[in-house]
């Protein structure tokens, strides 16, 4: 396979063998309702949603705020229980797995809470090994190697001994990704990972995701607001609007002017680029 994946992309339609044939993640008619008070009408509902993803595939979830993107991601992570339907990971129902078993298979990258006490980068990455060890034990040599390797894979090996609150936003995002890799998951979930990142770091992150998905056969699911990054890097896109999944498909099927204008409520232009990936330009309202 060509090392330059973006040039290889147009020649590899979604059915191509680079994803393998088995279904890793199957979301089957999953719905959810959130209400502050059980006796009241739900404040938010996610209507029945289905899609499938294979190993090595990058799926992005697009949609305006409050469209249900993050809720869907939390459902896939197994942290929320669906109201109906089920989510299968390699044939196992995700929300019936124990927290430990889940964390051995699914890793989540999200906006972090502030750390209470200063921690070194390597300590933070080692947290990813938690689900693989017994409750009361000290890290093994293997754990240390896996953590080091995870840092190396995101190009952050030199950060190892720095303190978490003394590294930049882009570096921090890579370290959080490294912790997720240290979990050695099958499924890598990312909730708006490009938030607060500059453009170079955004592209760097998606490049890393594409590389990791190909090399480690992760199934990657990214919630993002960045239409053009999704168009450039996604193999499959879910387009969501007010709790409904409008369409699932390859970028070319999603990036159609009328559809996107209706979902995002802005006039825009979609053009097809030379390598078969669409690009969106937002037009000003005036």
């Amino acid at each position, binding site marked *: 396979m060509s090392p330059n994946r973006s040039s290889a992309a147009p020649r590899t339609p979604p059915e191509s063998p680079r994803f393998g044939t088995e279904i890793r993640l199957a979301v089957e008619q999953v719905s959810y309702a959130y209400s502050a008070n059980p006796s009241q009408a739900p404040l938010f509902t996610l209507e029945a949603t289905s899609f499938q993803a294979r190993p090595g595939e990058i799926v992005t979830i697009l949609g305006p705020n409050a469209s249900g993107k993050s809720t869907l991601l939390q459902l896939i*992570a197994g*942290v929320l229980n669906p109201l109906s339907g089920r989510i299968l990971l390699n044939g196992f129902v995700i929300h019936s797995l*124990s*927290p*430990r078993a*889940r*964390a*051995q298979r*699914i*890793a*989540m990258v*999200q906006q*972090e*809470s502030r*750390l*209470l*006490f*200063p*921690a070194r980068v*390597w*300590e*933070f990455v*080692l*947290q*990813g090994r*938690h*689900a693989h*060890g017994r*409750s*009361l*034990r*000290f*890290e093994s040599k293997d754990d*240390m190697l896996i*953590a*080091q390797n995870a840092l190396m894979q995101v190009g952050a090996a030199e950060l*190892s*001994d720095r303190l978490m609150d003394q590294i930049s936003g882009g570096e921090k995002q890579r370290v959080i990704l490294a912790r997720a890799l240290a*979990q050695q998951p099958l499924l890598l979930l990312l909730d708006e990972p490009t938030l607060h990142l500059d453009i170079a770091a955004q592209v760097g992150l998606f490049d890393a995701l594409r590389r990791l998905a190909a090399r480690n056969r992760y199934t990657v699911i990214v919630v993002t607001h960045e239409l053009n990054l999704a168009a450039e890097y996604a193999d499959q896109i879910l387009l969501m609007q007010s709790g409904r999944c409008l369409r699932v498909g390859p970028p070319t099927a999603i990036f159609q002017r009328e559809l996107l204008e209706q979902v995002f409520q802005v006039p825009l232009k979609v053009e097809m680029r030379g390598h078969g990936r669409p690009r969106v330009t937002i037009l000003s309202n005036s």
Partner: protein
Amino acid sequence: MRPVTFRKLLFQCLFLVVILFLVVVIALKFGAVPVSLYALGRDLLRVLLGQSSQISSDYGLIIQNIRLPRIILGIIVGASLSVAGTSFQALLRNPLADPYVLGVSSGAALGAILALIAEPHLPLPPAFEALLTPLCAFLGAAATITAVYFLGRRQGQIESNTLLLGGVITASFLSAIIVFLMSTVNSSNTRGMVFWLMGNLSTSFQKSIYWLLVAGFFIAAGVIYGTANDLNILLSGEKEAMHLGVDVRRVRFVVYIAASLLTGLAVSVSGAVGYVGLIVPHLMRLIFGSDHRTLLPTSALGGAIAVVIADTLARIVVAPNELPVGAVTAVVGAPLFIYLLRRRLA
């Protein structure tokens, strides 16, 4: 990368055990009857080796029956409060959490007082009589931490400052009830107001109470230690902990119960000694790092050292009178609390 290892933990604990031994020897020396350090060290070793019958000197009685039980009480109380403080800090993600500041000690004290008032009127078998006070103190502690937890919650998230304020107000409210009870109920065995509000180690108990305290400490602290890795991860946030494989609800429940038990046991024999669970874990974090696998045991030993020192000071600074031990810990702890609060807000 220098990960925590079992050997490292062993060294740290050994270091603290040596300090604790020295502190105990010094604490035994001070008091109304002068005793030489050498004789003390020798006799203490004999007690440890189970040869207490060989202690022949005339001060043996003072050491064995007055000073040593009080020091042992201080060790258990200090260790319990420190481990409880460390646990509350991790669960509530708040470095200022402490059984006293959160009102948990006051809740335990109220439970213990109610038990002491009710005890003479209840037809209890004598074996259960000694258990009633610690049990009620535990229930008081558990009820208070539950109440404070919900006071500090807003929209499903614990809000740090609301939590602390809720704790301080709860403590003040419970103290008022304690003062009311102590002023109105005429009972000979309720030990006095200052004991409960400030903490005091001067009461002596039957031998069985000491065994109960030791057993309770090892069970509760052992249970908490079993979740040490989970607590490390919980410090990064509950959401993150769930994704990293921590059974957050189970850990929270188990550790709250165990920490309430530790607080209840300590308070039922010493009253509300404040700030130990705040000062000691912070000091230990500075010295040994914030990994709970080392922090919990070092805090337990550090808490024992701190309370024995504080109680020795309480005995000697205004001799021949005595201060409540809680007055000494508060003099050190309250300024530290303010300092940590200011630094966190900065």
